[in-house]
């Protein structure tokens, strides 16, 4: 569940970023003229790219498990050693997409914090708001997503049916 993705501190493990950074460069290098006036701008953009990399990977991974297609080995195999599973990421993605609809600012905060590792202060500077505002929205959004997940798992449902 997405809550696990957000918490994932059970083992206190954070993924090795080098491999992800490489893939990120691969994607960024193709775009040609891109200007990032500051590190914050770059990190914010990178957060989103990483999100798509991880989510795409998780989707493909799950599809392969079902279809048994050829394996493509990439860095994200590291994910398996971490304690986040692909379904976690995909559920988090669903929640983030909902949040993007109802409160885009919060979705961006979560994305920059979770996928980009930016600090509250960095996010605040990037968005031109105070870190108090960032902290408030991060806290509420996180609890909101987790509460919704719990809601879902409390009730009978078909977890495999979604998406």
């Amino acid at each position, binding site marked *: 569940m997405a809550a696990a993705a957000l918490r*994932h501190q059970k083992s206190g493990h954070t993924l090795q970023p080098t491999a*992800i950074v490489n893939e990120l460069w691969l994607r960024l290098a193709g775009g040609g*003229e891109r200007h990032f*006036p500051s590190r914050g701008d770059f990190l914010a*953009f990178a957060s989103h790219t990483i999100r798509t990399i991880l989510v795409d990977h998780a989707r493909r991974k799950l599809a392969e498990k079902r279809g048994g297609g050829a394996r493509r080995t990439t860095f994200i195999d590291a994910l398996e050693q971490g304690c986040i599973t692909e379904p976690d990421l995909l559920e988090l993605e669903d929640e983030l997409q909902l949040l993007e609809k109802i409160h885009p600012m919060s979705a*961006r905060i979560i994305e920059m914090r979770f996928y980009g590792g930016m600090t509250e202060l960095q996010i605040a500077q990037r968005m031109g708001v105070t870190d108090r505002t960032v902290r408030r929205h991060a806290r509420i959004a996180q*609890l909101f997503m*987790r509460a919704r997940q719990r809601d879902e798992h409390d009730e009978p449902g078909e977890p495999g049916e979604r998406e």
Partner: protein
Amino acid sequence: MAGRASITAEDYERLCDVFDELAELSSPDQRSRLAEIEKEDAQLAAILQRMLAIESESGARSEMRPIVDLAGAFHESDETDEAENEPDSPLLPSAIGPYQVLSQLGWGSVGDVYLAHQAQPVERPVAVKLLRHSRTQPDSKRYAVEARALSSLSHPGIAQIFDAGTMRDGRPYLVMEYVDGKPIDAVCRENDLDREARLRLFIDLCDAVHYAHQQGVIHRDLKPSNILVTHDHHDHEHHGKPQVKVIDFGIARLTGELADFHQTMTMHGELLGTLAYMSPEQLLGSRVDTRADIYALGVILHQLLTNRLPHDLAGKSLGEALRIVSNESPTRQLAADRSLRGDLETIVGAAMHRDPRHRYDSVHALAEDVARHLRFEPITIRRPGHWYVARKFLRRNRLLSAVTAAILLLLVVGVYMTDDARRDALAAHQEAERQHLEARRMSGFFLHDVVTRLERLPGSGEIRQSLMAELLRQTRGFIDERPNDPSVLDDHARALIAQANLLQTGTFPRDHHGAWPYVVEAVAVREQLAERWPDHPDYQMELALAYTRRGDVARDLGNHGSVLADYHRALQIHQRLVELAPDSRRYLDNLFWDYNRIGARLHLQGDSSALAWHQDALKVARELERRFPDHYLTTYALSQAHIHMAEQYETRGRDESALEHARLAVLHADRLNEIYPHSWHFMRQHRRVALAHTKIVQQSGSDAEKLEALTRFRKAAEAMHQIEPGNSVWARDMERARQWLAEPDR
């Protein structure tokens, strides 16, 4: 799971407010407060309860741990310059379908491009674009159909698509002609081509794009890196004619590249290099046609002429880019250069016109004008002089009414000169006319009087709705009777908007879903009116207002993709109207609200240009104050302008400025409340301003001011509660105010 899908932006805002309030309470207080909330909104209470439980389980303020410590990673690797290292080759596939991969040519956001070798049926090098799986991956059937359509494009100026297929793992690929060339801008710069040579290349480019348009294909992503120039190697010694080759024609749509891009954009406000070539309608994510390509060609022409882009959008957020494109002339740099002023300036200006309707009709027409310029012949497009058009616009209007009056007079005189039979026919006609007008007068009576008068009556929502439904039935009937009478269409559009307003503000709970079809139909009717009667300025304005309303409803539904686009459409219309008639209060007032809405929207999207938009709005509000100081809507605009400025400064931690603006907002909101104590809108505004002031004053105000603010807030909430007793927001406001007043130091 009943509540899952139905949470709206409004619900979430409320959830945030209530959560803040609860977080400050001790747990027994929380429980009793939750019990109260549950009575009003069980779903809200349930989710809040779970949120509080999770927080207390996982310890005080459990921190979210980043999945990737990217910020840290970049800190460490700053010196090693990873960008320069060739990416490792394990990612290079050995073959894609029957094509043997030789090397990688490029990396893109949705896929990579490889140089590959084709063995059958002809041996040749090809470029293969291999797509990643992405969430915008088109379904394979549509993909195959579109790829086939693209492969039918055959023109020396367009890189040919040879083949399309799918890898075993499901990733689609496209096989294209391999073009060994350089981007057009680099070729011009490096070879120091003279202006005539550049313009000839541009004309060749236009020929290729025009050909594709005739085949029904739009490029959508024209930019120098997609326009390569090759030299004919056989004729190298004689400086063979350079050949323009447009690559990736129609690919952007096929791969979903732009959809993906736009999503990234709207979520991030990041501008990438290609943004400079995007027309305003593309920036806003609207549907595009060939005129988007014409815009991009205008940008490219500018670049070929000056080696520079018309607008500097590098590193700008979406909101900032929109401000620049809406406010600045694209031909400033050309106007400043004596050799470019005149024809070329006019051509670029017409190609890059903000409004697609005022651009060249076709790429061919654009190329023809460039060719005429080279032949020293007069160009066909007229300088888009606003004043010329404007004066003509108004004059024609005046003339029109004079002509109508004359014809009417003739008709009336004519009646008395005809024989009995004709007189009878005319009388019958007049009787029908009289009945029609009477019926419409009645419906107008319902619309303007009964419904608005009932607005003040608490709980009248239902009655008003059934009256409105009846009215709509009638106005629709009038259209069937007189499909060519603009005033009938106008009445109908008015009724549709009134119905949407009623669903959104006159009832509780609000029904945003119910309002949507009405605003959609209203826009359709208004577009028709504005198109068929283009000389009627009020129809233009009403169209803008309909866009605004559609944007509002989309916003309230949490449908945020189209909101900015609609607000921006309204802004463009009002900007033009204010230019035409600077003395009109309504145009200026509407312009204020456009800036205000765009600012508020961008703020919610976390775009820091919101402040600049609100400053623009304040400027317009001050202009209103200067010209129309006594009008109550000026007062409304001023209170709105100042409260938004206050909130902008507050989120930036500039408490002094925030308080200053909040006080001004209160001043105007109080005045408004005195003039119209019973208007729902002004009451709501009064409550909103009072709440914001109360919050801001907590940071930096005196005790006396805090008390004054709280008292005002309580009164405003009580007033709202009285007319909407079912809405728990007002009840909670009153409770909050009561608690704060009881313990002023909180």
